């Protein structure tokens, strides 16, 4: 077997590092998590010339080796731990031709760890537009590396990069900067104490608060001399290191790079004049949001109807084609409708992820951060909270993880606490089905009432999130220093391949993640709904026949009476009826009650649960929506899903904290059960009160 080369892809954010990763690995990639933490770990395999294989890790984007977040810690931990199985044989630093100077800072740091380092200069196709020319030979000589000029957009230069990776052993490991230049006395002492260690590595161990091998840390702590430096002193040395590095880089680029500004065509300036404008910036942002919601609604209605029908027929077909028995019933009445309840939302979720990833890839999201910072700060949030709040419309879990780049702990904590109010894609199924039942279909100014209702619900989520942030900001007494630095990247046309991969990856993990829970719950529900403890359940047939003996019921009507008698006295029916008094004032019956209880595991379970409950005992082929529309209010008569109960249900789902995974992530990110417990109690309490008021006013 040929040897496998370990490659680490490193680079600043917005340099096209992920595009390079996609170009190298194609579809041979998998996304997971680093053990114990929620940082995404992307790895893939790349076939190199001469039958060599490379195992490639796409490390989180970072501006330097001075880590300030969990994601950045991952980079340093890997680069300093030679025993890690992923420790790179060669590092590939991806840089962007327009920000070469800044990108080289990270490059020189990695080079100084004496790891063979290849420099990728990406977006080479833009050099001409920007009037940039590079003397590659000179740069290679000064930086003592090999350079690959690449355009991931045009798929150029990738083969050259592969050649360089194959021949990584030819690359010099001479450092760029002599570390002791930073402070001669300090580093000479360090060298004397640890003659066998690389002093730049020691310096990082001293300054960075990350998890290194225990031995390293202990050894250094043992030599009291190096602990005596105060934090301020260390920071001064770090600053000096940065200045020294820039001096070196400036010197290299003086001869290696020329920029003819007269040649530069600046798309950025023209777009920014409008997109970050005091008035137009906000107007455009609002229009973009409006367009997204209308599109999600319009584009996905056809595939959704199709999926709904397919699952209804599948269920029917299973019943006909398979031998009668408990297993067939479980399949046809439990599993298939339950799965249908999740598959049906794939179109909408995919479109949502599509729009979010386009906004991020294009560089527009940073402009929104810039526009919103001042406003958000009033509510105790940061402009950077906008990204979690917007991506929270897909899922609160990655959104809460995205708060990691918020520098201030207080702003970050508040963002984490309020993000679950934003309308995540798991609420979408519930909203859509209820809206289609209780909101009329008309249009106003070309916008459907149903789409507008959906938009209102999204706005409600944002407004609630923001006003609770305001309250939290007043209540929470946390002293903090606020820092806010956000890069404004160049505008880029999103790469189709990147967007497609993101959409597929995220939709897949949504469907499989939720799918597992839904499958388990629908099996459980089916069992609970198909069996019961008392004689009312066992003798349902006799009881119903006796009761209706005088009335001349047709066979079908009789069967349906028997089925509902059975359901009422099944385990699930009894449980539902026990909690019914608590939810009746909100306008729900016990079936909805069961659906609400089960959706504390995950919201999207709601539709699947109702689908399973309604289909138990029913023979007809029907879509979920039709079954719900046919439900009758047991007390008042008339349809169960009226405007009042529908609105009440929508509001309940808008506010309630019904997602165990989110609570788990909040616990992990805040390191305490206090915050998720608070979220669960306050949000769900608010949901109950609001839903109660809504139903009582509207009925």
């Amino acid at each position, binding site marked *: 077997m040929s040897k496998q080369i370990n490659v680490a892809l490193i680079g600043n954010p917005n340099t096209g590092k992920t595009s390079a990763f996609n170009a190298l690995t194609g579809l041979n990639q998998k996304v997971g998590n680093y053990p114990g933490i929620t940082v995404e770990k992307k790895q893939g395999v790349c076939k190199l010339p001469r039958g060599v294989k490379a195992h490639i890790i796409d490390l989180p984007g970072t*501006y*330097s080796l*001075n880590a*300030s977040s969990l994601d950045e810690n991952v980079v340093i931990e890997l680069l300093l731990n030679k025993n890690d199985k992923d420790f790179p044989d060669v590092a590939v630093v991806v840089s962007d031709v*327009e*920000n070469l*100077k*800044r990108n080289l*800072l990270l490059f020189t740091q990695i080079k100084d760890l004496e790891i063979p380092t290849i420099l990728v200069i990406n977006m080479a196709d833009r050099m001409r537009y920007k009037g940039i020319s590079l003397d590659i030979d000179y740069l290679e000589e000064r930086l003592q590396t090999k350079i690959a000029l690449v355009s991931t957009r045009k798929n150029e230069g990738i083969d050259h990069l592969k050649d360089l990776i194959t021949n990584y052993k030819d690359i010099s490991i001479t450092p760029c900067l002599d570390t002791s230049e930073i402070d001669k006395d300090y580093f000479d002492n360090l060298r004397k104490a640890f003659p066998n260690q690389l002093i730049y590595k020691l310096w990082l161990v001293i300054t960075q608060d990350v998890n290194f091998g225990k031995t390293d840390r202990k050894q250094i702590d043992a030599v009291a001399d190096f602990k005596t430096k105060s934090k*301020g002193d260390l*920071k*001064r040395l*770090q*600053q000096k290191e*940065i*200045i020294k590095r*820039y001096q070196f880089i400036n010197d290299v680029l003086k001869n290696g790079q020329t920029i003819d500004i007269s040649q530069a065509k600046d798309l*950025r*300036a023209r777009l*920014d*004049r409008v997109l*970050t404008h*005091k008035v137009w910036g906000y107007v455009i942002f609002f229009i973009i949001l409006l367009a997204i919601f209308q599109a999600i609604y319009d584009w996905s209605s056809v595939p959704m109807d199709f999926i709904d029908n397919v699952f209804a027929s599948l269920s029917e077909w299973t019943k006909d084609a398979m031998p009668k028995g408990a297993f067939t019933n479980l399949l046809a009445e439990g599993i298939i409708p339950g799965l249908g309840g999740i598959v049906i939302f794939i179109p909408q979720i995919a479109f949502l992820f599509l729009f979010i990833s386009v906004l991020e890839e294009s560089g527009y999201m*940073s402009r929104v*951060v*810039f*526009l919103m*910072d*001042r406003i958000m700060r009033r509510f105790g949030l940061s*402009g950077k909270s906008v990204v979690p709040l917007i991506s929270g419309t897909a899922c609160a879990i990655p959104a809460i993880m995205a708060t990691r780049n918020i*520098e201030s702990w207080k702003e970050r904590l508040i963002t984490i606490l309020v993000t679950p109010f934003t309308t995540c894609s798991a609420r979408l199924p519930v909203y859509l089905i209820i809206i289609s039942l209780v909101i009329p279909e008309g249009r106003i100014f070309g916008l459907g009432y149903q789409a507008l209702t959906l938009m209102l619900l999204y706005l409600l989520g944002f407004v609630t999130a923001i006003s609770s942030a305001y309250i939290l900001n007043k209540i929470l007494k946390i002293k903090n220093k*606020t*820092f*806010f*630095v*956000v*890069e*404004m*990247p*160049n505008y880029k046309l999103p790469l189709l391949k990147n967007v497609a991969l993101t959409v597929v990856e995220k939709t897949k993990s949504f469907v499989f993640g939720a799918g597992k829970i839904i499958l388990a719950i629908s099996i459980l529900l089916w069992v609970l709904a198909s069996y019961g403890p008392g004689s009312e359940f066992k003798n349902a047939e006799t009881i119903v026949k006796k009761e209706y003996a005088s009335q001349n019921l047709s066979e079908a009507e009789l069967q349906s009476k028997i089925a509902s008698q059975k359901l009422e006295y099944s385990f699930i029916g009894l449980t539902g009826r026990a909690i019914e008094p608590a939810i009746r004032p909100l306008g729900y019956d016990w079936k909805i009650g069961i659906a609400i209880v089960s959706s504390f595991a995950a919201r999207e379970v709601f539709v699947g649960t109702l689908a399973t409950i309604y289909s138990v005992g029913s023979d007809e082929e029907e879509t979920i929506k039709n079954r719900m529309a046919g439900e009758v209010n047991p007390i008042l008569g008339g349809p169960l899903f009226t405007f009042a109960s529908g609105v009440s249900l929508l509001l309940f789902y808008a506010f309630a904290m019904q997602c165990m995974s989110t609570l788990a992530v909040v616990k992990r990110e805040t390191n305490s059960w206090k915050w998720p417990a608070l979220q669960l109690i306050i949000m769900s309490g608010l949901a109950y009160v609001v839903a109660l008021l809504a139903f009582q006013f509207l009925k």
Partner: protein
Amino acid sequence: MQITLAHLKRGERAIITDVSSIHIPLKLLEMGCLPGNYVELVQLAPFQDPMYLNINGTHLAIRKETAIHVLIEKIDI
């Protein structure tokens, strides 16, 4: 009175003369906010905050409360 980044008007350029490193996050220094580098104010959000800057070729936004710790010398174009 010392002139800081916060005094810059839209479209104006300056040279950074000093940064007070206690008040400035390391990340900003890494982005090139160092003495000797040029800076240009690209855009201001409403209420003059945050500020969208071009520092040494890097485009970034910072808040005014950070900007007051960066001393500058304006240059005429």
